[in-house]
């Protein structure tokens, strides 16, 4: 009897050790944050569009129609091309082992994590070195393929690798030739992953901003770019809001379809099979060798030409008349520290790096403070969490430019103090931070906490001695995610930043928009620095995940 009571008391204490703070307290600040900086601005955007004149003005309808059409056109084309490269790449990675495979796989994964500004600058540098002229649309499509191929490789290649090889073998032994095996067995089983990957790639291409703005030559505008233009270049906030609404409807629709399909995939997850083997037949060897080389060339060229171009003088520093001294130079880096009169900024460009790092630090602070309680609540979900979870993820459905637009509409540009930039970044980073922390918190075995409790630890001491040390890794990963996202964020920052307070991506865009070799070189130098920083962060996250 006595023992039973003791155990009962321990059970009660254990339960309180689960969540040291009431759920309400966990959710309060994150929800207030979202309310103030996401839902309220969203409502302001909607209010702007609740105006029959804005909605039905023929020129607005015309612009909306033209821009929407182009957005779908380029996204559709990009997706098609991405799969053109991605499907053979998936087969290559899931079915074959070959020399340099881990390196090549990592290589294809890097561009997705790179800021779009860096991707644009990298393609720019590759063209400059190869002395090639390509149509803006071609460049945009190539850049999209460049950073989205890894999605296909991960999702379709992953599904292909987890496909039980016995199914294909069974089909073959039952008399199906290769084509019928693919049509009757492989393809139907891959379909959910395939559709999910198509939707996701399409979504990223649909909301693409930096690449289109920087490689589009000023003529091509997607919804995202047009919204930006209507905020800063040809100010017309009601039209911008109307386009934002249109864009939101499309992105939410695609996201909704994606999450439906994705739920199907996760319920089908099978154990992984070791299906990869060295190529055996002559045809397999040719395919593996040729395609691996093609992939390597396509992915290495832009990544390598960026740093090279940042040290290579190929054109005159200012204007065409000056004498060109072609050769290696560190001038572009040196120039970053100089505050020239008549330069693009009122500060030396290196100040952009300091701004970026401070904003990224603030974003880490904000998103961890808000994300940790949410992840904690979500790790022991009740009915409340089922409702609130999608709410936290909702900003993912809104594009970056739209988040910036919302803040401007809601708080006015006069209010756009530097604090709004990390706030916008936090909105974007929060879902990632939560998703990085939540499984780690949920994965701590309850038994450890019980053991600590039975050994006499108070709920707070349990947290201090069990949860926190175990979570150190996940917290670092989440922080790095937030840091990387903030460093590379372009769309929202461009709308919110003041001229004298640029971030690295904003500075790169400005340098690229100006003529002259010195400006171009500085864009390359800053891009190289940003790329190096980002790759360092990726390595840190990867190392963390594999350790």
């Amino acid at each position: 009897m006595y023992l039973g009571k003791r155990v009962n008391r321990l059970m009660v204490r254990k339960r309180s050790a689960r969540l040291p703070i009431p759920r309400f307290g966990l959710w309060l600040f994150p929800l207030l944050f979202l309310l103030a900086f996401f839902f309220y601005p969203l409502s302001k955007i909607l209010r702007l569009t609740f105006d029959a004149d804005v909605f039905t003005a023929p020129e607005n309808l015309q612009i909306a129609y033209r821009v929407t059409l182009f957005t779908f056109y380029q996204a559709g084309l990009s997706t098609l091309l991405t799969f053109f490269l991605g499907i053979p790449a998936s087969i290559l990675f899931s079915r074959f082992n070959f020399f340099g495979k881990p390196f090549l796989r990592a290589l294809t994964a890097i561009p997705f994590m790179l800021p779009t500004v860096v991707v644009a600058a990298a393609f720019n540098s590759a063209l400059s070195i190869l002395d090639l002229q390509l149509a803006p649309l071609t460049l945009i499509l190539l850049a999209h393929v460049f950073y989205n191929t890894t999605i296909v490789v991960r999702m379709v290649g992953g599904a292909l690798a987890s496909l039980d090889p016995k199914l294909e073998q069974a089909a073959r032994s039952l008399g199906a030739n290769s084509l019928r095996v693919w049509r009757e067995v492989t393809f139907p089983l891959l379909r959910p992953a395939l559709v999910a990957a198509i939707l996701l790639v399409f979504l990223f291409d649909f909301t693409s901003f930096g690449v289109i703005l920087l490689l589009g030559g000023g003529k091509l505008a997607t919804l995202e770019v047009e919204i930006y233009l209507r905020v800063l270049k040809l100010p017309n906030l009601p039209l911008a809001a109307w386009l934002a609404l249109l864009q939101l409807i499309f992105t939410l629709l695609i996201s909704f379809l994606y999450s439906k399909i994705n739920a199907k995939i996760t319920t089908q997850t099978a154990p992984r099979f070791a299906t990869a083997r060295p190529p055996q037949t002559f045809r397999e060897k040719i395919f593996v060798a040729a395609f691996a080389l093609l992939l390597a060339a396509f992915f290495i060229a832009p990544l390598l030409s960026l740093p090279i171009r940042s040290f290579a003088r190929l054109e005159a520093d200012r204007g065409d008349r000056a004498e060109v001294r072609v050769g290696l130079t560190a001038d572009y880096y040196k120039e970053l520290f100089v505050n020239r009169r008549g330069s693009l900024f009122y500060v030396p460009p290196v100040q952009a790096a300091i701004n970026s790092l401070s904003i990224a630090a603030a974003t880490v602070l904000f998103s961890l403070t808000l994300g940790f309680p949410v992840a904690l609540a979500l790790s022991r979900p009740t009915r409340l969490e089922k409702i609130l979870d999608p709410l936290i993820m909702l900003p993912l459905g809104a594009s970056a430019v739209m988040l910036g637009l919302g803040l401007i509409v809601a708080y006015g540009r006069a209010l756009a103090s530097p604090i709004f930039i990390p706030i916008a970044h936090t909105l974007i980073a929060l879902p990632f931070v939560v998703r990085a922390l939540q499984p780690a918190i949920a994965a701590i075995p309850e038994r450890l906490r019980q053991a600590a409790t039975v050994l006499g630890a108070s709920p707070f001491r349990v947290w201090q001695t069990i949860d926190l040390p175990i979570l150190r890794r996940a917290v670092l990963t989440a922080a790095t995610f937030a840091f990387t996202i903030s460093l590379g964020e372009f769309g929202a920052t461009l709308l919110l930043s003041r001229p004298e307070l640029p971030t690295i991506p904003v500075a790169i865009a400005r340098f690229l928009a100006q003529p002259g070799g010195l400006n171009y070189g500085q864009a390359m130098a800053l891009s190289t620095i940003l790329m190096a920083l980002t790759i360092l962060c990726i390595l840190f996250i990867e190392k963390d995940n594999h350790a």
Partner: protein
Amino acid sequence: MLELKNISKQYAGQPLLENISFKVKENETVCLLGASGSGKSTLLKLIAGLEHPDAGSLLFNRVDLAHTPPHLRDFGLVFQDYGLFPHLDIFANVAFGLRMKNKPLPEIKQSVTELLAQVNLTGFENRKVTDLSGGEQQRVALARALAPNPRLLMFDEPLGALDKNLKADLLNELRAILRKTKTPTLYVTHDQEEAFALADRILLLHEGKIIRAGTPEEIWQNPLSSFAAKFFGVGNVIVGRVRAEGKRLKAETDFGTFDLKCGSKHAKAELVNLLMKQTSVAGAEIKLKVEDLLFMKDQFQVKSRGAVFLVKEKPKLGQTIQLRVKVECLHENPEEES
């Protein structure tokens, strides 16, 4: 029918199968028996054409199959974990092979109904694969393999994932079906009881080689090697040292000294592997001390000096008992200790 000639296969630089040769005749069920990792599943895949041998040839009705792709070989294959198509219902799974042969739909329907009846799954046509139990799934896999009326049936540990009672039931059904279809069958397993229950002939695969082939009776009577003896659990394998006693050779062992009567020549003081079988009538008498005792339902297992014996009456621990044994030579000898 099926004939393998000197088939060899390497895996990751290591020989997995070495010079495998055997035949499967009409109406015959051959069991390929071996521990896991002995290469038996690979051998099935080679025959099915899903993998290619490094050397050797494969013939069916004297036709070389080297250039026949798997889908034209007309061999049925049943996997251990079934390999049913998860995106198709039971009907479509069983009908798959018939559709590949472009049979007309009414014929397919009739065949599937008959096959499902044969494996006791009448009415399961529209069920989903995932709704079926393991035993039911294995029956579907069997029906699916039988449907296109293959020239050869192959089973890869088909009962390995099932529990004991279900295994016994399915084994009996399988025997009946195989007897009825008369299709030559190659059955791979690591379970000697399955092999004894099904096989007309057994091939024992060990370290990439067939070390014993024969009917179940032949193998049980004379396993030849100490590995086969241990694998089938035929008596105890013991070690003896050869000693000459006049003209006769004897072997000295932990259990006493026995006559060596195997015809083959042995040198004096040589170490030999011997198979010691318990017998009830003739044979040498030995005395042993009961070191360990295990209840085995209607008899008792006695352990002594590393060997195992069965007795009817319960002895006491430490007691000395008398038993009759027959001692035979095995074909290979242990390494001489230096």
